[in-house]
């Protein structure tokens, strides 16, 4: 299934224009005042951003939607619409006025990003806007009527109507948001309201205009299988992003599997247990001795029930919200034994590290993170991953390729991206050949970057 899922609405969400042009056509749809207010809060977002592909730093553009959620100009959108690589964000209000905005923070795990309107500009130009209101996504029932607001394929002011098809759809993707992980910690709303490229970041609302979800992705090529982040998740995440600019989560390295039908095999009491499908090497769970095939019965005294896929994200979330370094007590069933394991959580780190381009080398890189190193069984997180090289430039001429991990340049171990930046600055000041050590599949090769 996952393979058939294109990055949906990700890269270049088409035009979405505020659907709040006080539309006479909609009036006939017997819309409530709440709905009018909602339409006034929907915005279009134009993003100019940097991309570090093919050995260069390039500017690209993207367009998406968003919804204003507070009177001080906080806008909620998708992480795949606005990320830290954005250099310029411009927001088109319902009044067709364009205002600048800044990224407050993003969270690829929930595919949410928060922007703030340039309030000085709003004041100076005497502009006005409305904030939408949240509804309670937990109160949604399958079959409830919902509307998606957005600009699919550039068709402005498009409202689509459907129902909640499922209010607890698990959806996990290790590369889903710009190559970042997503969906591990929350279930999604599934709707048959038509969601197409361009709907990204726009709200999913009930008939009274309350935001119950942020439209995020759809199966392309399927008929009306769209997905939205529940508003209760969005509310919590946006609040934290406004306060701290980022979300800190706890990590223990347990990869759960569904226990579905395996209770008998593990001789478990009914409706109990979380199957450990994998344990990340070197993670707190691994160090504590947790093993794949174990069944976790309780976590800090709480009984776990992970029989079905949709039961896993809430369990993951219950670990993620613990303070980093918190102690976790697990009661684990292994064969006929029951073990008590204690471990301390670590900070959750993405497998995608900071990206950069060294333009005179024609080399774009991404820092190896702890998570990437574990995933690829590297000794540690030293090094940068080559994202791309520009043909004809020193890196390409030296023979470096996408996928190589540069561990040393000159005498400098590349433990941090900054160390490579230092070497590069020295090279810029006085270009001289640099010896580069890189590995691919644990095999070490030497290269020379020549001016």
């Amino acid at each position: 299934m996952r393979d058939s899922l294109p990055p949906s609405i990700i890269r270049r969400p088409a035009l979405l224009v505020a659907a709040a042009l006080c539309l006479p056509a909609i009036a006939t749809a017997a819309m409530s005042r709440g709905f009018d207010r909602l339409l006034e809060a929907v915005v279009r977002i134009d993003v100019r951003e940097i991309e570090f592909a093919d050995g260069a730093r390039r500017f690209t553009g993207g367009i998406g939607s968003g919804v204003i959620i507070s009177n001080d100009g906080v806008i909620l959108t998708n992480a795949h619409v606005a990320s830290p690589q954005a250099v310029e964000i411009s927001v088109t209000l319902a009044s067709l006025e364009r205002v600048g905005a800044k990224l407050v923070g993003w969270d690829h795990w929930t595919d949410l990003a928060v922007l703030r309107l340039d309030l000085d500009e709003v004041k100076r130009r005497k502009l006005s806007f409305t904030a939408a209101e949240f509804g309670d996504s937990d109160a949604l029932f399958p079959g409830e009527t919902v509307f998606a607001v957005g600009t699919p394929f550039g068709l402005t002011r498009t409202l689509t109507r459907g129902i909640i098809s499922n209010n607890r759809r698990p959806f996990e993707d290790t590369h889903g948001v710009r190559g970042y992980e997503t969906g591990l910690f929350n279930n999604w709303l599934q709707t048959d309201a038509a969601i197409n490229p361009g709907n990204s970041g726009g709200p999913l609302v009930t008939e009274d205009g309350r935001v119950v979800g942020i439209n995020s992705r759809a199966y392309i090529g399927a008929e009306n299988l769209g997905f939205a982040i529940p508003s209760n998740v969005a509310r919590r995440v946006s609040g934290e992003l406004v306060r701290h600019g980022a979300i800190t989560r706890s990590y223990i390295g347990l990869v759960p599997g569904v226990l579905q039908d395996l209770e008998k095999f593990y001789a478990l009491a009914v409706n109990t247990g979380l199957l450990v499908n994998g344990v990340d090497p070197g993670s707190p769970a691994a160090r504590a001795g947790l093993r794949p095939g174990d069944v976790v019965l309780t976590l800090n005294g709480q009984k776990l029930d992970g029989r079905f896929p949709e039961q896993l994200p809430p369990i993951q979330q219950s670990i993620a919200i613990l303070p980093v370094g918190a102690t976790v007590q697990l009661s684990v069933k292994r064969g006929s034994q029951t073990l008590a394991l204690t471990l301390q959580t670590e900070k959750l780190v993405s497998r995608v590290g900071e990206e950069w381009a060294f333009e005179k080398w024609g080399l774009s890189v991404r820092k190896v993170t702890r998570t990437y190193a574990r995933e690829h069984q590297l000794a540690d997180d030293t090094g940068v991953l080559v994202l791309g090289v520009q043909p004809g430039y020193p890196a390409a001429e030296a023979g470096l390729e996408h996928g190589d991990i540069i561990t040393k340049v000159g005498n400098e171990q590349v433990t941090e991206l900054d160390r490579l930046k230092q070497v590069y600055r020295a090279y810029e000041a006085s270009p001289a050949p640099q010896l580069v050590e890189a590995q691919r599949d644990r095999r070490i090769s030497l290269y020379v970057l020549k001016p």
Partner: protein
Amino acid sequence: MNPFRPWLVLLLLATVPLRGATLPELFQERLKSVVEVEFFIQSEIDRQPVMVLGTVIDDQGTIILPGPSIQPTVAPGQLKEFKVYRAGNTEPTRAEYLGQDAFTGWHFIRVEPKLRGELVPITRWPAMKSAPALSEELWGIGLRGKDEDFLPYFLLSRVATVMKLPQETAICGSDVAGPGLPVFNTAGEFAGLALPSFGQNYLLFSRNQHGNPIMLVNVEESSAVQLAAEVLPYLHRVPETATGRPLPWFGAYGLQPMDPDVAKLLKLENQSGVVLSDIAAGTPAEQAGLRDRDIVLAIDGAPLPRLKPDRVVAGYFGQQLLLHRPGETIHLTVLRGGERREVKVTLGSEPKLVREADRHYFDRLGVTVREFLYADAISMRVAPSEQKGVVAHFLKPGGPAATAGLRPEDWIREIDGTEITGYQQALDLLHAVEVDKERSEVVFLVGRGAETAVIRVKLI
């Protein structure tokens, strides 16, 4: 009398090929050195027929086949019913498989005595004393398939270039012989053996696509010829065992060429080298004190040659090692941190290979499991001392294990919650599962890269 006549005769004598034979005559004669060989690779559920070309190398009916004829993971026991056919003759003669030589890569077979009198070893023909000159004409033999009665045909081309890859190889302008068959000069001297064909780069244009680069490989003929000097000295390397043992073991799994720019920067102008890495604990290389990033510059006092492309030197080094036997000592000159040092390595014996591993097929589960090998530990990045579990070697398509999501090369670490510590234990457990008709499922814990998964196989 015409005074010029005797001169004319002399002139004719000088230009007529050796022993006075014409090309058609030479062709007919040399045909006795070539055969087509048919065999089957027996797998768990089917047998795959293979047809390859071979060259006769001695009077005992020994025939060599190109290395790539058989995948390295195929166990000798899976090779069945070798049959030898002569050019233009559909009468099969049985042969036995002798094994593969690690250095040359050739597979050796020996045909039954009754055919031996009909064959002439390649060593019977005179060999060229030196490499063919650029533009020199070479010719060779091709053989059609079984349905065309192994009809022989004549191929002719000219030498375009001679390269060290690392063996000296002549590349002809066009196809010159069937892969694995001999090539001669116009005097009928043995010039070398045709290698499996190199790929040719082409652009593929179609109605709505611009030229897409593709590579074409001719499987019936080849233009690459390994020269006689690289063939004749190694014909005696008839394997002692079907698995090709004894095999030396060095134990550095990363052998990367040092490119000329790197050499220049390290002030090693005009030197060639191999960068060592991925040296596992307990290997001969590690015990000799070699470390990751050591650059090998010479072996037994002989500097590594500069070869083109650069990467060929790694293959050269690997092959030099294969010329030794386990227990022999080699002397390496390595560069470590700018300093040269001499390192003595006593080669070990290659750990058990996939083709030698014990394996067993379980029909009800639809899976073949094999022993966990040293090479598995290397590829799965675990300490070789922690060799546990078994490996899923083959999965019957659509079988219960494949349907449940088990994949080839999965590392089976637990069966029904029992940790697997040895091959026999895994066999016993799986055998018990197979015979227990009441059984409806079996649960595997498998490793795959850095991930693990619990896989439940439903039995039918």
